[in-house]
C-alpha cells in the first residue's frame, strides 16, 4: 500500500489544491501534509523493505510499481528533502500571492518524481518524467510577468524536451523489438537474444540522451543555470530532490538492462566526466549567487554519471550513494542561498560580503555545505566522492584524471563562493541588511546541516541495503583526497581569504582575459545555440514569405494568371495590373516569356500573385464576374496542377517499388 501512497497522495493533493487552497493557510497545510505522508510512507517502505512488483488497476488504466532498493532509496530522498523544502516554503513564499499555483505544482512535482522512480516500466517512467518536466517549466517560470523567468522556463522545457525525443525513440525502439516496456522483461529479452545487442546499444544511448537533457549534461546543460530564475525553493527542489536526479536514476536503473554493453557505459562515463570538468571551470568565474551552485550541480551530476558508466559495482554504488549526499548538501546550500536572497535581495556576489556577522547561522550551515561539497572528511560528501574516485582508479584512468581535476576546482569555487558571500566587509548597502531567517526557515537548514554532518554514518547500512560489498577507505585514498583538497584550497585561500594575491592577476593578460571571458560566457555554447535557433527561425521566416506564400500558394494564382492571358483577356488584365502595380507587368512578362530565370525574384512573384488575386477575386462587381467566368478555367488549371503532383507521386512510388 505504501508504494502507492507515496506518490498518489501528493498527486491527489495537487488536484485538491485549487479546490481548498483558495486561502493561504489550507494550501500550505495541505502541501505539508501530503508531502509528509509521502515521506513517511517512503520511510516505512525503507524500514520494512521487501522487493516486489505490484499493480494498481483503475478502469482503462494500470500502474505498475516496483519496490526494490533503488526505487525505495530514491523515493525516500525525493520525498523527505521535498518535505523540508515545503516547510521552508511557508516562510519563504509568505509574501507571494500566487500560492495556489505554487503549491499545486509543488505537489505535482513531488508526486511525479516519486512516481517516476517507482514505475516498473519505461513508458510509465516516461509519462512521469515528462510531468516532472512540465512542473519544472511552470515553477521556473513561476514569476511569469518577468520576461527572463518565462524565457528560462521555456528554455528548460525545450532543452529537456530535445533529450526526451531521443528517450521516447529509444523506448519505442525497444518496445517494438521486445514487445514490452518492463525493465525486467527487456533485460531478459536481451540476454535471450544476443543478436539484438547492436539495436540495444542504439536504444540504450537514445534513452541515456533523455538523462542528458534532464540532468543537464553536455551538450544539453545550458538550461540549468538559467533555471535560477525561479524561487530559491524551486531551485532547491530541482537540484536536490527532483528533476535532475531523475536522469541519474534513469542511468542507474537501466544499467540493469545495458550492463552487458561496455560501449554504452563508456559513453556515459566520458559524458559525465567531461561535463563535470566543463561545469566546474565555469563555476570558478561566475558572479551569481545561485548560478555558481547551478554549475556545481551540473558538475556533481557529471561525477555520478562518470561513476555509474564505469559499470563496476563500486562505481555504481558511488554514483548512486552520491545522489543522497548531494541531495542533502545541495539542498542545504540552495536554502542558505535562499536565506541570503530573502534577507538582502542580492544576486551578485560582487555586492555581497560581510554576511558572516549578520547571518551567523546561515554562514555556519553554508560552511558545512561547502565542506561536504569539497569532500572534506568526515562529512557525507567525503565518503561518496571517495567511492567515486576509487572506482574511477579501478575503472578508467582518463575518467579518474578528469574527476581529480574537477574535484580540485570544486574546492576552489566552493570556498570562493563562501568567501565572497560571507567574509570581508559588506560591498553594498543591501548587504548590510542581512539577517538570519525565521524559525520555519531555520528548521530545514539545521536538519539538513545535521544530515550533512552525520550522513557518513549511513554508508554502512546503505551498502548492506544495496547488498554491495565495499572496501574500507584506504590510506592512499585519504592521502589522495587530502592532496586534491589542498590543491584547490591553497589558491582559494590566497585569492579570497588572505588576499595575498589579487583575483584579477590571472585575467589581466591577454590570454588570461580571453580565457576568463570564455569561461564567463560558458564556452560560448549558449551563444552558439542561440545563433542556431535564430538562424532556424530566420530561415523559417524567409521560407514562410518566399516559399509558402509566394511559391506554393502563389503557384495556383500564377497558373490562373497564365490562364487569363491564354483566355484572351489580356487587355483587361493589363489594365488592372497597370493600375495596381507597375512592376507586375514586367515581372509577369518575364516569367511568361521564360527569360526571367535569372531575374527570378520572389518579391515580383509575390506582387504578381497578390495583384492577380486582387483582379480575380476583387471586391464588388469583379467578384461576380469571377464567380461565373473564370471559375471553370481556374478549376481546370488547378486540376492540371494536381495531375502533375499525382504523376510525381506515381513516379516516386515506382522508384520505391
Amino acid at each position, binding site marked *: 500500500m505504501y508504494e502507492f501512497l507515496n506518490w498518489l497522495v501528493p498527486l491527489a493533493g495537487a488536484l485538491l489544491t485549487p479546490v481548498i487552497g483558495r486561502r493561504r493557510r489550507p494550501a500550505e497545510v495541505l502541501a505539508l501534509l501530503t508531502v509528509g505522508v509521502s515521506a513517511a510512507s517512503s520511510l516505512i517502505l525503507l524500514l520494512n523493505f521487501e522487493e516486489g512488483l505490484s499493480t494498481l488497476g483503475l*478502469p*482503462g*488504466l494500470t500502474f505498475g510499481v516496483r519496490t526494490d532498493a533503488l526505487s525505495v532509496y530514491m523515493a525516500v530522498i525525493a520525498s523527505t528533502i521535498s518535505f523540508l523544502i515545503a516547510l521552508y516554503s511557508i516562510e519563504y513564499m509568505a509574501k507571494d500571492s500566487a500560492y495556489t499555483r505554487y503549491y499545486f505544482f509543488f505537489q505535482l512535482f513531488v508526486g511525479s518524481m516519486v512516481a517516476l522512480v517507482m514505475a516498473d516500466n519505461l513508458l510509465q517512467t*516516461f*509519462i*512521469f518524467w*515528462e*510531468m516532472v518536466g*512540465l512542473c519544472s*517549466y511552470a515553477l521556473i*517560470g513561476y514569476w*511569469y*510577468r518577468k*520576461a527572463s523567468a518565462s524565457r528560462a*522556463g*521555456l528554455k528548460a*522545457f*525545450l532543452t529537456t*524536451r*530535445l533529450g*526526451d*525525443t*531521443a528517450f*521516447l*525513440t529509444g*523506448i*519505442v525502439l525497444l*518496445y*517494438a*523489438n521486445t514487445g514490452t516496456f518492463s525493465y525486467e522483461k527487456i533485460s531478459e529479452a536481451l540476454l535471450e537474444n544476443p*543478436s539484438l545487442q*547492436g539495436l540495444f546499444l542504439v536504444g540504450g544511448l537514445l534513452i541515456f540522451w533523455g538523462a542528458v537533457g534532464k540532468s543537464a549534461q553536455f551538450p544539453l546543460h545550458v538550461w540549468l543555470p538559467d533555471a535560477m530564475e525561479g524561487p530559491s525553493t524551486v531551485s532547491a527542489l530541482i537540484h536536490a530532490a527532483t528533476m535532475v536526479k531523475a536522469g541519474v536514476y534513469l542511468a542507474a536503473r537501466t544499467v540493469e538492462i545495458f550492463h552487458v554493453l561496455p560501449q554504452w557505459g563508456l559513453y556515459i562515463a566520458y559524458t559525465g566526466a567531461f561535463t563535470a570538468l566543463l561545469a566546474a571551470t565555469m563555476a570558478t568565474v561566475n558572479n551569481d549567487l545561485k548560478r555558481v551552485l547551478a554549475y556545481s550541480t551540473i558538475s556533481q551530476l557529471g561525477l555520478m554519471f562518470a561513476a555509474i558508466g564505469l559499470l563496476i559495482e563500486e562505481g555504481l554504488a558511488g554514483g548512486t550513494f552520491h545522489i543522497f549526499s548531494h541531495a542533502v548538501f545541495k539542498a542545504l546550500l540552495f536554502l542558505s542561498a535562499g536565506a541570503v536572497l530573502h534577507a538582502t535581495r542580492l544576486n551578485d556576489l560582487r555586492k555581497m560580503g560581510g554576511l558572516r556577522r549578520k547571518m551567523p547561522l546561515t554562514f555556519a550551515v553554508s560552511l558545512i555545505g561547502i565542506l561536504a561539497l569539497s569532500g572534506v572528511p568526515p562529512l557525507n560528501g567525503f565518503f561518496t566522492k571517495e567511492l567515486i574516485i576509487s572506482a574511477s582508479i579501478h575503472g578508467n584512468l582518463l575518467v579518474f584524471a578528469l574527476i581529480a581535476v574537477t574535484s580540485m576546482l570544486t574546492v576552489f569555487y566552493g570556498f570562493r563562493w563562501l568567501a565572497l558571500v560571507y567574509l570581508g566587509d559588506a560591498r553594498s548597502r543591501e548587504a548590510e541588511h542581512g539577517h538570519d531567517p525565521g524559525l520555519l526557515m531555520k528548521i530545514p537548514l539545521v536538519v539538513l546541516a545535521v544530515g550533512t554532518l552525520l550522513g557518513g554514518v549511513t554508508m554502512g547500512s546503505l551498502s548492506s541495503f544495496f547488498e554491495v560489498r565495499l572496501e574500507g577507505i584506504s590510506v592512499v585514498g585519504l592521502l589522495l583526497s587530502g592532496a586534491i583538497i589542498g590543491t584547490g584550497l591553497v589558491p582559494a585561500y590566497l585569492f579570497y581569504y588572505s588576499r595575498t594575491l589579487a583575483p584579477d592577476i590571472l585575467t589581466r593578460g591577454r590570454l588570461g582575459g580571453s580565457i576568463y571571458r570564455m569561461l564567463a560566457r560558458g564556452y560560448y555554447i549558449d551563444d552558439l545555440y542561440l545563433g542556431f535557433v535564430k538562424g*532556424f*527561425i530566420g530561415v*523559417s*521566416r524567409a*521560407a*514562410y514569405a518566399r516559399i*509558402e506564400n509566394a511559391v*506554393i*500558394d502563389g503557384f*495556383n494564382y500564377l497558373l490562373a494568371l497564365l490562364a487569363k492571358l491564354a483566355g484572351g483577356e489580356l487587355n483587361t488584365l493589363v489594365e488592372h495590373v497597370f493600375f495596381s502595380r507597375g512592376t507586375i507587368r514586367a515581372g509577369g512578362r518575364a516569367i511568361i516569356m521564360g527569360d526571367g530565370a535569372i531575374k527570378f525574384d520572389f518579391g515580383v512573384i509575390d506582387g504578381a500573385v497578390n495583384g492577380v488575386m486582387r483582379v480575380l*477575386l476583387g471586391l464588388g462587381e469583379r*467578384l461576380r464576374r*469571377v*464567380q461565373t467566368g473564370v*471559375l471553370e478555367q*481556374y*478549376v481546370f488549371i*488547378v*486540376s492540371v496542377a*494536381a495531375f502533375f*503532383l*499525382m504523376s510525381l*507521386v*506515381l513516379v*516516386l*512510388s515506382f522508384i*520505391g*517499388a
Partner: protein
Amino acid sequence: MLLLTLLLVPVAFATSIAVLKGFGVNIGRKAAGGLATVVFALSFFQVVYISTLMTGRMTEFYPWLNMLNLSFSLILDDLSLLFAAAIAGFSALASAYSIIYLKAHKHPLGAELYFANLLLFEVGMLGVVLSENIIQFLLFFEAMNIPAFFLAYFWGDKGGKEAAMKYILYMAVGASLLIGGITYLVGSTGETSLFELPARIAEVGLNGDLLVAGALFAGFAIKIAAIPFHTWLPDFHGEAPTPVSALLSAVMIKLGAYGWVRIVFPFFPSVIEGSSGFLAVLALLTIGWGGYMALSEPDFKRLLVYSSISQVGYILFGLATLTSIGVSGGLLHVFTHGSAKFLLLLVAGSFIYSVHRRKISELGGLAGKLPATATLALVGALSISGAPPFGGFQSEWRVFVGGMERASSLALYGTEWAFWTVMTWIGVLLTALTAAYYMWTVMKILYGKMRPAFVDASESPSLMLVSMGVAGFIALLFGFAPGIITAYTDRFAQLMVIIFSG
C-alpha cells in the same frame, strides 16, 4: 430509424429556422443558438445510446433511387461511431460558444441563419460517416462544403469572402478527382456498397490501379490539407468565424483521413503497401513543413491552423505504418488532436472576443487578466505538443511504436529497416518542433508584462468558458483513458491490417 433521425432532425430544424426567417419571424440569436445546441447535444447522446445497442455494425436501408438500384443506406460501425460522436459533440460545444461569439460578429443576415447553416454543416459531416454506399458518401462529402462556404463567407472575418472562394475552388478540384475515381470504380464493378467494393475491385483486378488510387488519395489529401495541397486551410480557417474554424480543424478535415481508411486503404491494398514508404515521407514533410511555417506565422489563429496541417501528418504516418498499433494510434490522434485543437481555436476566439486582437505581437501578458482561458490555452498547447498526461501523448507514442514495429518486421539493419527507424526518429524529433512553437507562442501571448491596452479586459463569458472547459476536460480524459477510443480503433485497425498482411 435511429440513424436516419440523426440526419433528419437537424435538417428539419434548419429548414424551420430558415422558413420562419423567410416570413420575417426572427426567433433571435439565443433561441436559435440554444435550439441548435440542444439538437447537437441530443444527437451526441443518441450516438452514445446507439453504441450501447450495437454489436458489430448497425445498418438501415431506405428506398431511394430505385431506377439506379440504389438505396439510401446508413451504417454505423466502430469507425463511424467515433466520428459521429465527435461531430455531434464538438458541434454542440461550438454552437453553445457561438451564442456569445456572434454578439461581436454580427451580419445583416442574422444569427438565426448562422445556426441553420451550422445545423446543415453537421448533417453534411454526419452523412459522410454514416453513408454505406459510395455515391451517397460522395454527395455528403461535397454537400457539407456549401454550409461551410456560407458560414465563412457571411460570418467570417475581413478576408472571409476571398477565403471562402478559395476553399470552394480547392474543394472543387478535390471533388473532380474523387468523382473521376469513384465513377470509374462504380462503372467497372457495378457495385456501390463501401463494404462490398473491396472484394469486387479485387475480382475485376483494379486493386492495383495506381491512377485511380492516386486520384482518390489526392482527392482526400486536399480535404485533409496534406502538403502541398494545404494552402487553402490557413486562409479559410483563419477567416472563418472562430467556432466554425474549431469545428473545421477538429473534425471536418479529418474526414479526409476517414476517406483514406474507409476507401483508399481497403480498396487498393497493394498500391498502399507499395507506396507506404512514400506516404511516410509525405507525412513527415507535412509535419515538418506545417510546423516550420507555424514558427513564423504572426497571426495566432493562422498559427493554430498551420499546426493542424502539421498534426495531420501524424495521422498519416500512423496509417502508413500499416501496423495495427500505428493505425490505431493514427486514428486515436484524430480525436486527441481534435479535442485539443478545438480547445485552442476557441481560446483564440476568446482572445478575439475579449481584446479584439489576433496578431501574436499585439498580444501579451494575458495570463493575469484571463487566468482560466490562459490555463486552458496551456492545456491545449501541451496536449498537442504530446506532453503527458494529456491525450496527445497517448496517440503519438502509439504512432511511433507503429513505425518501429514496421521496421522490426523487416530484415534487421537492412535499408528498409533503416528507413523506417530513421523516419520514426525524425517523427519523434519533430514533436520538439511542435513544443517549440507552441510554448514560444504561449509565452508571448500569456506571459510577460501586460499591455496597457488590456487593462479593462475581462475573463471570457461563462458560456464560452464552459465550452472550452469541456473540450479541455476531454483532452485530459483521453490522456488518462485512451481506452474510450482505442477500444474501437484497435478493433478496426486489426481488421484493416489483415488486408495487408495477406
